């Protein structure tokens, strides 16, 4: 195959049809290779994000558990303290235990809302790759 620089050097000679076809072939091959490299890179980035989101998923789970349990414990302690102070065992303990549970659920709902926002900001709403459903 003649070098394209030679062609141009020898003064405005037309590129022969065979050469043009060869160049086109090379260009489309280059395009394919670029597409492939791009796809590979995107897949790698996707996998990395997925791994990170899995790690985050675990952290989020722990967070929920801590939110719920902490409120129940605090509610129970307040009730217990009021009971020993007012001598009304065990009624205020029971009442505040239940209130603590409600507060725990409130905590979980609030942190869930925050979590959704964070995840949406990062990935557009996905936490880890979705597992295919049997029903699908």
């Amino acid at each position, binding site marked *: 195959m003649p070098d394209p620089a030679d062609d141009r050097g020898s003064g405005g000679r037309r590129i022969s049809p065979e050469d043009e076809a060869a160049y086109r072939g090379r260009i489309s091959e280059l395009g394919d290779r670029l597409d492939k490299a791009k796809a590979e890179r995107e897949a790698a980035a996707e996998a990395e994000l997925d791994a990170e989101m899995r790690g985050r998923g675990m952290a989020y789970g722990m*967070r929920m558990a801590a939110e719920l349990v902490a409120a129940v*414990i*605090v509610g129970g302690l307040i009730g217990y303290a009021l009971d020993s102070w007012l001598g009304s065992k065990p009624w205020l303990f029971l009442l505040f235990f239940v209130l603590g549970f409600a507060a725990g659920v409130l905590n979980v709902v609030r942190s869930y809302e925050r979590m959704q926002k964070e995840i949406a900001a990062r990935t557009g709403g996905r936490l880890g790759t979705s597992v295919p459903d049997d029903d699908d």
Partner: protein
Amino acid sequence: MPDPIHQFEIHRLVPIDLFGWDVSFTNSSLFMLVTVALVVGFILVSMRGRSLVPGRLQSTTEVTYEFVSNMLRDAAGSEGMKYFPFVFTIFIFVFVCNMLGMIPGFFTVTSHVAVTGALAALVFLTVLVVGFAKNGVRFLKLFVPSGVPIVIMPLIIAIEIISFLSRPVSHSVRLFANMLAGHVTLKVFGGFVVMLLGAGTYAALAPLPLIMAVAMTALEVLVAFLQAYVFAMLTCMYLNDALHPGH
């Protein structure tokens, strides 16, 4: 089997008795001092050049600064930037303590609820003081959501107050529990390797827990960063509540 809890024991290095209080210099105090010295030393050294085009060390510090300032500005708005030194100190202290704990043989300061509890209490008290100083009685609006029928108001207020009081508990427990659980798991897998190696033909199985321990170490490094991030993030959110109590 090696005791997985042994690594969390506190030893007195320099016994100090102050008016009947035991304020000894312990291994925990030592690692806190090491953390502070490392952070201060690193920042001073990395920012010594103060070049317009940062070198590697300087950009590490600058990226950390940007990271924390973005986090704070997103969560608490630009008024929140007044508390940047507070949030930055907490983030970097927890982060470096967590990371130092990942080095084998080192003590993990943040695996003790006394330390994380003190940090969480500091954040809680700061929020209370800032909230009342900035908004006065209006800060109490935090406990009164709008649009609630007057009949169930007392119930809602009680729930909101318990929810508010539970913040320092979950704030501190989350960090300490994560660090404690991670380090115990690592130690247990390490213990399996040693036990299997001493068990005759079963020694052939020893690489399995070793691989697991290596994978867990990678996960723990991620957790160490993530928990420091979460701790600082929640600090920002609580500060936001103190600055803008009207939800």
